[in-house]
């Protein structure tokens, strides 16, 4: 008898079928992995389960009773807890405040804080989730915040825990700690749904695995019967051709970027506030150097320094190019483009200083629109008109335009941060091919990425960034998954060559 059963769940958003007749069950004391690519329908399914969305069809049964749709409070009361991929914590409140939020009747005249504190300490002991209750959440590391999220659900008596991509923000060391915690939870009778698109983790932690593809459930089975290859094929559907690097293209000896001993402090725009500590890096013409590492370790600040938006406090920075530096920002929707402006206005916005699109301060609208149309055609951006606001485009199409805009004019230096985040498979290989062809014609590319597969597929050399420090950039064949994992966890750059 499963403790949780989803029966025939369907959900459509406009023309998109996010969930198509999905039935799935969870047994007591097991870890069920929910595997699938971005957009496979994992998050939608969990949001329906949790009551954030209402399904078009289908029912949810929890501990034998039907769960009323669209009522997150009831899901919470009945012992369902969810840890979202993007944490739902209030940064300026203390850990205890965050745990207490919503746990008491809102009409109560007084919060039972002392009792809550005792209960929290017991839970923290029991499951090895040490945090300081009075600390403000904004002072905590990412791993600690995740612990607070898990504690929140346990405090409210969750019996079933849903973890949405819990490792995407963690270092390998923190992942190990998380897995230890999950094993303790399961040993004490909790059940876990573990949502991921990372095969190794799924194989390591889960008892059973369910695979979603394009909104349909394509596989459910025991993890021990699965292999990495079988799961990968199920998840993607068919083998995807990855772009092949042209091995004949050799990096020249002409350095384009030379950083030495750079120190810089983050501004309020850099959420992580990690300063750069004595960073040295050289990138030459015709090579891709990847900066691997978990986001929030200073990558955004490094990109801003390279781009000239932040002045380093010490060290020397030299970028040798006559052309503007091309930059692809990791937050394409909010920083990469101005959503309310039209596609053509966004296409020319960074190049208005030059006389190509302006005369005496007036816009050459015809030239700008023609340029935008050419970019749209060349980079296969799907849209109705270059005059439509760019916010009406899909993420993949925005990224293609951003890429086209950045690569226009054959830049010598390219800084690409998480260029394929959240894109579908087709768009990913398109972006990769473009970066490789830029390399082939002699551009120096800095690729900032969390996606190790991407890093190994594209980079000539890899450096790892942890806590504002950058390791030396060694050639790609001197790194292994294991050594890079150690480096990302902050083990000194004594990499296994």
């Amino acid at each position, binding site marked *: 008898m499963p403790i949780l059963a989803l029966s025939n769940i369907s959900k459509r958003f406009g023309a998109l079928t996010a969930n198509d007749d999905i039935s799935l069950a969870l047994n007591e004391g097991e870890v069920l992995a929910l595997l699938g690519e971005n957009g496979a329908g994992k998050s939608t399914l969990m949001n329906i389960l949790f009551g954030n969305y209402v399904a078009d069809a289908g029912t949810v049964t929890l501990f034998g009773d039907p769960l009323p749709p669209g009522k997150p409070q009831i899901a919470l009361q009945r012992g369902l807890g969810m840890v979202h991929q993007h944490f739902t914590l209030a*940064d300026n409140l203390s850990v205890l405040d965050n745990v207490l939020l919503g746990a008491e009747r809102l009409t109560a005249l007084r919060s039972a804080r002392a009792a809550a504190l005792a209960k929290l300490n017991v839970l923290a002991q029991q499951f090895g989730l040490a945090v300081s209750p009075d600390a403000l959440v904004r002072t905590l590391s990412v791993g600690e915040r995740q612990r607070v999220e898990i504690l929140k659900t346990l405090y409210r008596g969750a019996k079933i825990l849903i973890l949405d991509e819990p490792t995407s923000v963690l270092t390998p060391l923190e992942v190990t700690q998380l897995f230890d915690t999950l094993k303790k939870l399961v040993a004490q009778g909790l059940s876990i749904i573990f949502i991921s698109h990372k095969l190794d983790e799924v194989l390591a932690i889960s008892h059973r695995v369910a695979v979603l593809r394009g909104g349909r459930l394509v596989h459910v089975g025991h993890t021990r019967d699965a292999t990495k290859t079988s799961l990968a094929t199920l998840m993607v559907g068919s083998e995807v051709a990855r772009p092949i690097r042209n091995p004949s293209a050799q990096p020249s000896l002409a350095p384009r970027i030379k950083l030495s001993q750079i120190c810089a402090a983050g501004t309020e725009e850099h959420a992580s506030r990690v300063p750069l500590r004595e960073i040295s890096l050289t990138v030459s013409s015709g090579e891709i150097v990847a900066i691997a590492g978990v986001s929030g370790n200073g990558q955004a600040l490094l990109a801003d320094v390279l781009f000239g938006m932040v002045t380093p406090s010490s060290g020397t920075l030299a970028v040798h190019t006559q052309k503007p530096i091309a930059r692809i920002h990791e937050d394409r929707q909010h920083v990469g483009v101005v959503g309310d402006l039209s596609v053509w206005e966004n296409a020319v916005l960074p190049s208005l200083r030059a006389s190509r699109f302006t005369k005496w301060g007036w816009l050459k609208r015809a030239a700008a629109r023609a340029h935008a149309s050419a970019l749209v055609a060349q980079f296969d951006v799907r849209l109705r008109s270059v005059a439509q606001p760019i916010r009406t485009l899909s993420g993949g199409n925005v990224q293609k335009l951003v890429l086209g805009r950045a690569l226009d004019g054959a830049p010598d230096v390219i800084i690409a941060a998480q260029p394929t985040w959240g894109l579908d498979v087709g768009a990913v290989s398109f972006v990769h091919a473009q970066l490789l062809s830029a390399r082939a014609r002699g551009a120096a590319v800095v690729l900032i990425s969390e996606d190790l597969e991407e890093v190994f597929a594209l980079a000539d050399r890899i450096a790892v960034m942890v806590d504002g420090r950058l390791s030396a950039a060694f050639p790609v064949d001197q790194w292994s998954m294991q050594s890079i994992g150690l480096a990302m966890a902050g083990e000194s750059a004594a990499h296994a060559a």
Partner: protein
Amino acid sequence: MEYLALLADQELWVAVLRIATPLVFGTLGVLLCERAGVLNLGIEGIMVAGAFTGWLTVYAGGHLWLGVLIAAATGAALGALHALLVVRLPLSQHVAGLGITLFATSLSYFAYRVSFPKVDSPPKIDAFAPLTHLLIPILNEQTAMTVLAFACVPALWWLLYKTPLGLALRAAGESPQAVEAQGIDVVRLRIGAVIAGSALMGVAGAFLTLSAFNSFFFNMVNGRGWICIALIVFASWRPGKAMLGALLFAFFDAAQLRLQQTGGSALPYQIYLMLPYVLSIVALVLVARKATYPQELMQPYIKGQR
């Protein structure tokens, strides 16, 4: 020396408390709204409306406290309208607030003129009497509304920091996603906060007609609402500091009034009148960088969006 004499003057401190009272009510109202994440520039108009309806109630024969209640209800109703516009629909909080101010002010003036078409001197009521039986100097010259205002400060502090509702309220202005994830309805919470805060603003207005003066006249609010909006930044959104800010502002206002009356000053009276405003700006400059704004102030919350 004249300044020292001024400080020793009991009348000055009586005036400070009197001038501070509407500011305390108003600033606490702003605090409630902004802690939940909503800017309410309707305050100026809500104070006018509260002053008018409170006064009208008493003029029509109602009890003084009924007048206060009606003023609170008026504020609550206008707050509900503001909340409908900026919480239920995510419209611009600046513009909707200014719209509410214009609406409430003009409607009050219109209603006053319709009700009293041909009066030269504004009709008077019997306002709140000073609490003379208290026998505590300074305080015995205040009315019950002043006591109420200062009692609201610890009450609001308790609400915000000691109750589950207060925690949810603060979180709604910090991270509505966190609140919603715990199954609490952010929209209802914010609407509630705006309504309650606006009710306090209504009471702030009523103090003017029911306690400070005994009639309603045009321009009587005269920017006090805007002062509250400035004071809350100065107060870093904390009830205790809000009270302090109101007292400080009132002190400068009272001091300039005294100096003007005694004529003991060489400076033109406008300089003294300007002082509180100039000092407000200076205070803002000093605290603005350090101020921990409610993170989601002025950010509309739309369910399912981050």
